[in-house]
């Protein structure tokens, strides 16, 4: 589903973010991407979104080589990817329902579909009572649920989450992870970048560890740290 082949990313200021990364994630997998800040997790996410171009190597997502996608088809590529961010990236002047509806409207879906689907998906993430609340009126965990609902409303085959629990307390984080787990269970490929050690240890999923831009460990049913 997502393949990195000898990918190196050097930023303009000569900072090496990724070095010769090889990684394959198959359809339906749940993968944690772990590592300290600056280890290259976010760079990988942004490369998958084609927000950045690799300096060397190639990436393919969903069977398509990203290097071959012309700029004007990038939006289409992104519609196959649900994105969740640490800072939620919700629009503050839109209600929860409007934020979710926005993602559908942007991709040109029918208003009728939007009206039926938005309450369903918000119900699914446990926010059926907060349809008309603005992000400012929601807790961090609730905002992240809205953001997950937005990422998943069009049922993309892949969902990527960059530090989804980074701003949340451990209890709330569990709920968010359970939600991602459920989404993965429906068949969605889920890639989560995190340095939430406990969470990774509890979930026992595949763990890919990055260190200074290199993959130093890739273990099925792994933990956060190197286990002896």
């Amino acid at each position, binding site marked *: 589903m997502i393949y990195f082949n000898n990918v190196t990313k050097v930023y303009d200021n000569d900072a090496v973010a990724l070095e010769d990364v090889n990684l394959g994630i198959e359809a339906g997998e749940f993968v944690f991407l772990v590592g300290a800040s600056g280890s290259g997790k976010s760079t990988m996410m942004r490369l998958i*979104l084609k*927000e950045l171009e690799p300096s060397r190597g190639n990436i393919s997502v969903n069977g398509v080589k990203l290097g071959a996608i012309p700029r*004007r088809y990038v*939006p*289409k*590529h*992104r*519609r196959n*990817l649900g*994105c969740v961010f640490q800072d939620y*990236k*919700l*629009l503050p*002047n839109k209600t929860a329902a409007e934020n979710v509806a*926005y*993602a559908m*409207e*942007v*991709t*040109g879906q*029918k*208003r009728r579909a939007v009206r039926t689907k938005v309450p369903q998906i918000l119900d699914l993430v446990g926010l059926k009572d907060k349809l008309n609340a603005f992000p400012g009126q929601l807790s961090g965990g609730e905002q992240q649920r809205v953001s997950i609902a*937005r990422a998943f409303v069009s049922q993309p085959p892949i969902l990527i989450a960059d530090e989804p629990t980074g701003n949340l307390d451990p209890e709330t984080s569990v709920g968010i992870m359970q939600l991602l787990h459920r989404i993965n269970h429906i068949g969605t490929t889920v890639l989560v970048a995190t340095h939430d050690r406990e969470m990774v240890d509890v979930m026992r999923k595949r763990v890919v560890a990055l260190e200074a831009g290199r993959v130093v460990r890739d273990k099925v049913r792994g933990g956060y740290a190197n286990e002896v």
Partner: protein
Amino acid sequence: MRSNNWGFFLREAVKNLRLNLLMSVTAITTTAVCVMILGAALLVSAHLQGIIRNVGQDVTITAFFPENASQETIDDTLSSVQGYPEVSESTYVSREEALDRWKETFSDQPDIASSVGSDVLPASIELQLNDPRDSGAVAEKLRSEGFEEGDLNYPQQTIDNLNWFTGYMVWALRVATILFLIASILLISNAIRLSIFARRKEIEVMKLVGASDTFVRTPFVLEGLVQGLIGATLAAVVVVWANSAFVNWAQSYLFSVSSESINAFGLMLTLIAVGVLIGVAGSYFSVRRFLKV
């Protein structure tokens, strides 16, 4: 672009206009001021050209006899002038008649009326021409009759004087108009850029959920269009109103200003078109910078 998107674009544009009211007001005011200045410049140059045209339509030539001209000279001149083929009518105005006219002109201002005696105003001959374009040629003939250039009053003279003056004036106005246009485009695109900058997060989110460039841009461009339209319409109404007020005022005085110098409806359309164009172009190019996510 699918047709059901337009409802979405319109709703977004209207909502954004409302939410970013201050920015909208800034952009609208800037557009209005710039379009008003442009309109004023167009008005002034149109009226100047109208005045020149009006003066050019004048078919009267006046030739003043020198102070010491004898009755004989006057009679000789009169009879030869009446023979000019270009002249349809000629009237001799004696010193006494000139004084009467003076008194009549200033009948409501007795001080001025009584300030001159019959010896001050010269006798003159007034010629009506068939064609105003002959005035130069007739003036030439009159000079050969012994009239000095300073004793002649004919439209070409006025036109030359006006042309000399308006030539510079019109050029200055053109330069000013172009400068103002450039300034207004910069100001407006800056105002729009500010309002877009305030919403760059929104654009970022749109891009991340897979909105195409056109999709992100269209509400902003529509917004620019609406802002340009409102600003320019306000300005156009003010300009047209000011124009009619000016024409009324000028006509009740001495100016040969005509309301026909300006097609008010055309002017209004031009100004609105310019405003809309500025708004659309300004927002189009301002958003482009923020699309590269």
